[in-house]
Every structure is written in structure tokens, then in C-alpha cells.
């Protein structure tokens, strides 16, 4: 048993933190949110050059063979800087889908371009009626000659506006809420019949509603086996959750540090507000929440590849529960302790708070994952 970082992990953390500190943060976010895509293609290129886009792929696939803990290290740094680039959707989610479901041919074709930063991915798993249920799929795909025709609509597709390849879940058999009969397809963003309605999100990122009207894809667009897409989707969700938990830990760290600093300089009633015992204890509680969140993010990363499905479920859902609660507490208290200033778009606090609030919602909130946890136990 060994819970310390390897030298490589320490290096990765340091380089990611340097990058983030130099380039990212709330000011970058306020600038980028007014651009068309909401992130920087230039940064994306740099991330490719740094090898980060190759992290989770095996060496045979052209990657670095990184573990979930490596991704955690990177995402924690991204969380510290409100990184806007589509790492989660392309590398974590797209990567997970390809690794879990992709054929050799698909991997050979797509992973190198992904790793080079030339292809961006997203996974369109949610539907308007589905809330957080991955298996609730009304979109259909029917065979048409050797290919397929897809009809339906996908909700809140993260970076759905800028992705080149959209991995779409569609029902090839069964009823709307059946666990089987879901298939995944790699669809070109420019495919005829595919319409995107992009919009900004609360945390300054981007998403899109995607409407598929008789979108035709070839046979080789099928990712994984017909009707067996759900386990792949679940894998995508678990990897995404684990990454988001790490990101949240990074965001909480910044909020805690910022709040501590602010209370030491802000004066009220003739003294720094850090002198008030109630606020001191509040910050002690924030720190404890942060440490517990950090522990659970670690548990998720360490057990993501556990062979025991119960252990994996409890680790990942348990982490999402903890991050949801801790993130809410740390975020809300950071705003509260900053007073009116915490409410402004100008300060960074509000942006981290919003990101934490959104991370709680993505891939299922506290309530959803408490149920997942109970069902596994």
C-alpha cells in the first residue's frame, strides 16, 4: 500500500500547475467566454504538445499509458485554473468511449488525431426526458442497408458546438428505459441532418442541443457491439466523474486559499475579519470538507479500475456525493465570507463557486449518486 505520488506524477502536477497559473484562471475565462468557441485553440495545441491529450491511452494506441491517478493529478490542476479547453469531453469521455468500445480500426484511425489535438470529441448521452439516467434513450437508430439512420435529440451535449466527432447513444432495440438495446455511433458533426443549437453554460463553458433528423452513418460508425452500448456509457460516466471530482478538488483549494487571504486583509469593525471566531471555524470546516473531498477523489481514482463492480460503484458514486456536498459548502461559504464582493463577476470566487455548483449536477447530483451507492451496497 502506497499513497504517495510517483516522481512522474509530481512532475505532471508541477508542469500542469505552471501552465494553468500562466494562462488560465478567472480573467482568462471572462475573456474567452465572449469568443465563439469559449476556449483557446492555441492552449489546446500546447496541451497536445505537452502530451496531455495522450495521457490515458496505452502506448500501443499512441498514448502514455497513464492511470486514473495521473488524470486526477492533471484535472486537479485544471480545477485550480478553471480550464476551459475540452479535455473532459475529448480526452476523458471520448477517450473512455474509444478505449472501452472502439475497434482496432477505429482506434487506429481516431486516437492519433485526437492525441495530436486535431480531432475533438464529445459524447451525446443525455436526453431531455432522461435526467441523469444513461439508459433512458429515446433516440433511435434503424438499419438502412449496411448503415444506420439516427433520429432523435440529445440534450446538454458538453462542447457539442465545437466537437468534430459526436458519440451518440441511440436505441437499436427495446423500450425507452431498457438497459439493453442501446448502441453507440460516432457521428461527424457536419453530417447532413445533424443540427446543433449551441449556448453558453452557467459556468462559462459551452454546450449544445443536438437534433438528429434522419442522420445516415456507415456501418463502421458503430462503436462497440450493437445493443451493448450501456456498459460503455457507464464507463464514460465513471471516468468523467472521477476526473470531475479531481477538478472540483482543485477548485475548492483555490476557494479555500482565496477566502483565507481575503479574510486576513478585509477589515470590519476595526480588525481583519479573520479575527472573528465564527469565520475562523467556518474556514476550518471548509478545510475539512476540502480534505474529505480530496480523499474521496483519490478513492475514486484508485478504485476506478477495480475488478469488483460494487467496490467501483461505491467509490465513484461515493466520491461524487462527497464532492457535491463539499463543493456546495466550500463554494457557498467562500461567497458568503467574501460578502458582496463574492457576488461579483469581477472576482474569481463566483466563477469557482459556479463551476462547483455545475460539477454537482453533471453526471448526476448528490441525490442521484446516493441512490447509486445504496443500490450497490
Amino acid at each position, binding site marked *: 500500500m502506497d499513497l504517495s505520488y510517483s516522481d512522474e506524477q509530481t512532475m505532471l502536477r508541477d508542469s500542469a500547475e505552471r501552465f494553468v497559473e500562466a494562462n488560465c484562471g478567472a480573467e482568462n475565462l471572462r475573456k474567452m467566454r465572449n469568443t465563439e468557441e469559449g476556449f483557446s485553440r492555441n492552449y489546446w495545441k500546447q496541451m497536445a504538445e505537452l502530451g496531455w491529450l495522450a495521457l490515458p491511452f496505452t502506448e500501443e494506441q499512441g498514448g502514455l499509458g497513464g492511470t486514473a491517478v495521473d488524470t486526477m493529478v492533471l484535472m486537479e490542476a485544471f480545477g485550480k485554473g478553471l480550464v476551459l479547453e475540452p479535455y473532459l469531453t475529448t480526452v476523458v469521455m471520448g477517450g473512455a468511449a474509444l478505449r472501452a468500445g472502439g475497434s482496432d480500426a477505429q482506434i487506429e484511425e481516431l486516437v492519433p488525431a485526437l492525441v495530436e489535438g486535431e480531432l475533438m470529441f464529445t459524447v451525446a448521452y443525455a436526453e*431531455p426526458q432522461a*435526467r*441523469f439516467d444513461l439508459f433512458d434513450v429515446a433516440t433511435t437508430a434503424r438499419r438502412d442497408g449496411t448503415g444506420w439512420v439516427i433520429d432523435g435529440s440529445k440534450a446538454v451535449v458538453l462542447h457539442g458546438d465545437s466537437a468534430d466527432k459526436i458519440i451518440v447513444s441511440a436505441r437499436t432495440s427495446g423500450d425507452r428505459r431498457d438497459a439493453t438495446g442501446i448502441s453507440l455511433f460516432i457521428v461527424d458533426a457536419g453530417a447532413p441532418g445533424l443540427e446543433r443549437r449551441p449556448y453558453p453554460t452557467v459556468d462559462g463553458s459551452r454546450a449544445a442541443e443536438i437534433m438528429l433528423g434522419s442522420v445516415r452513418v456507415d456501418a463502421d460508425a458503430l462503436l462497440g457491439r450493437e445493443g451493448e452500448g450501456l456498459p460503455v456509457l457507464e464507463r464514460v460516466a465513471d471516468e468523467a466523474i472521477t476526473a470531475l471530482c479531481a477538478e472540483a478538488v482543485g477548485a475548492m483549494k483555490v476557494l479555500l486559499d482565496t477566502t483565507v487571504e481575503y479574510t486576513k486583509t478585509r477589515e470590519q469593525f476595526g480588525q481583519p475579519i479573520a479575527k472573528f471566531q465564527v469565520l475562523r471555524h467556518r474556514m476550518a470546516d471548509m478545510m475539512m470538507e476540502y480534505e474529505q473531498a480530496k480523499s474521496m477523489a483519490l478513492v475514486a481514482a484508485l478504485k476506478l479500475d477495480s475488478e469488483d463492480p460494487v467496490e467501483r460503484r461505491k467509490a465513484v458514486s461515493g466520491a461524487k456525493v462527497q464532492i457535491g456536498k463539499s463543493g456546495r459548502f466550500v463554494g457557498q461559504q467562500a*461567497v458568503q465570507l467574501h460578502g458582496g464582493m463574492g457576488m*461579483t463577476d469581477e472576482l474569481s470566487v463566483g466563477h469557482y463557486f459556479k463551476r462547483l455548483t455545475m460539477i454537482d449536477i453533471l453526471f448526476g447530483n448528490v441525490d442521484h449518486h446516493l441512490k447509486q451507492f445504496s443500490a450497490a451496497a
Partner: protein
Amino acid sequence: MDLSFSPEETAFRDEVRAWVADALPADIKAAMERGEKVKKDDLRRWHKILHEKGWIAPAWPKEYGGTGWTATQRYIFANEMALAGAPDLPAFGLKMVGPVIYTYGSEEQKREYLPGILNGDVWWCQGYSEPGSGSDLASLKTKAVSDGDEYVVNGSKIWTTGAHEADWIFCLVRTDDTGKKQEGISFLLIDMKTPGIEVSPIIIINGDHTVNQVFFNDVRVPKRNLIGKENEGWTYAKFLLVNERNGIAQIGAKKHTMARIRKLAASTQLNGHRLADDPGYQRRLAETEVALMALEYSELRFLSGQKTDHAPGTEANMMKVAATQLQQSMSELFIEIAGYYSYPFDGFRDTEGSNEPPVVPEDAGGAMHQFLYGRASTIYGGSNEIQRDVIAKVLLSL
């Protein structure tokens, strides 16, 4: 002890209910139902309808344009307005500076300012907080220096809601800095069109522009705009703060929101059943409703003069803490209805000028927007930490 209304009170309730059902413009009611922000022009339209009916200022003394109603009638009226989905009118004129003027102002000031507040022609904003003084209001530094018949005002106010839409501002200014910080403060009325005033918007975390910073550069204000006596503004300020907190529970509006949440939860699907039937959600809904009942009857108890046992005078502080905590719980219930659709940036659902329907389903309209905005409720008007300090001070000195 009796909860029921007398026949006269019941008749009054029916009258109010019938009137508001008829008088509230349908477009304003619909906007409220969709969770949209009601614009200034619409608010003014509704203001004028109430004014014409004579019901614009129930709490004011009858001689100044009030209604002469009993406390129970005022409670009924506020409740009916909220349940009917009528928007709250800005408090700055009607509930804040108006009462200060008729209580502490000169006859001339009453004649000059009260009519505009009542008929809705003059919009006010409040110049209290400053960049350096948050919860420690009395440490304010904006200076008013006497110069003949005028004061020359320099300094800055912050978190000024609606300053960009207001005609006048009532300000706390420092006219003497030699004594204790609470002494030497004066209460001044300033025309927003006076040269030297600059309004700078502050965008808050939901992307909205409601608050501002207001800068005063050698702003010349006639001395007849001073309320009461120079250096005694702190007295009037405290009077106004208590007035402000009294309204803060907003029971009627909360009941209205609660009913909306309940209705939406009943039409939202979760795991193949109604969100309203989800045991976890149902539990939190029930907890929130119980808290709302407790708040409502606490207010009724305090209104009926059944004082708290422990700390006379802290009712307003307790109501502020309980009401804002409840408001935040309610907003958490609300965003859960939206599920994934709390993620798109929605803003108040301004659909004007757009051909497309909004991304966020109508059900969840404005939920996240209000959740974010609502984080301020435990901060402004004296943070909840300050409220607890006050409660404890009274509680422990007994």
C-alpha cells in the same frame, strides 16, 4: 387565541382577492409565472394601478396616503398579492425612504417627495454601503462638507440596487468625523441628475445588472435635502433598517414559489416516476414546507405582539436569518427540478427579439438564475453573521 378571520376580515380578503385577479395585468402575471424578471415599465404600470385604487402604501399612516387598515388586514393584503402572483414593488421609495420622510422629514419635504413615491413617478435607490464598509455600516466615509446653502459630497456607494434606473438616491454621508463612528452621520436626499454623480454597473454572478457603484465627485446638494438634523442620520438609518428587515420574510411570495415548486415537481419525471414522488425530494419538500409554516406563524406571533421570551427586539433579526435560509433551501429544491437544464446559462428568460424558444424548458425558467442571485440574501442588509451577533448580544445580556 383564534386563527380564524372575522366576517369583516373574510369579506376584506374576498374583496382583495377579486380585485387583484381582475386588476393584475395578464402579461405581468404570466411573466411572473415563467420566472422572468419584470421590467421597470411594467412595475410602474402595476404601481400606478395600485395607486389609483388607493392601496399602494398600506403601512403608511392614513394622513400620508395609507389605507388605515389593521395589522390583520395588511397581512391579508400582502398574502393575497403574493398568492395572486403580483410582483413585489421596489422597497426603496415605499418602504424605506417614504417612512423616513413622513416620520423625520419637514412639512416641505413631505409635500415635495411623498406624492412622487406614492404615484410611482419618482424611482428611488439607497446609498448605504460603501466599498470599505460592508456589515460595519457605521464606518462609512462618503463626506458631505458644508458650503453655504449646500453640501459638497465626495465618495462612493456600492451595491446600489437600481441606481441606473433611479431618479433620486437617499444617502448616508459623514458630516463630522471627530466623534464615535455612529455620530456624525447625516441622511441626505440627492437628485441623481446632479452633476458629479457617476453610476458604474456591477455585474453579478448570474450575469445580471441590478447593482451598481455610485461615485460622487464634488456633488452639490442643497441643505434643504437634509432629513432631520445634521449628524443624527444614524437614528433614521436604524429606523429604516428595522423597516427593511420587517418585510424580509416575504411569506406570501414564498408560499407562491412553494406552490410553483410543488406543481413543477409533480410534472417532472425522475426514474420513471414523478419527482414529487421521489422519497428524497419529497422529504426535502416536506422539510421546507414545515420551515415555511414555522416562519409564517413566527411572523404572526410577533405581529400579534406575542413577543419572544428571550430577546425583545430581535424578532426582525431572527426572521431575517430564518427567511433567507429558507429562501436558499427553496432555490435548491427549485434547481433540482431542472436537472441537466440548470446547466445552460438562462438568465431571466428574456425571449424578446428571439425567434427560438428558450433552451431551458419553461418549467425550470430562471431557477439557476435565482439560485445564484439568492446567495446574496444572507449577505445584504446585514449578513446573517451580523444578525446572529445582534441576537446573541441581546440574548446574553438579559
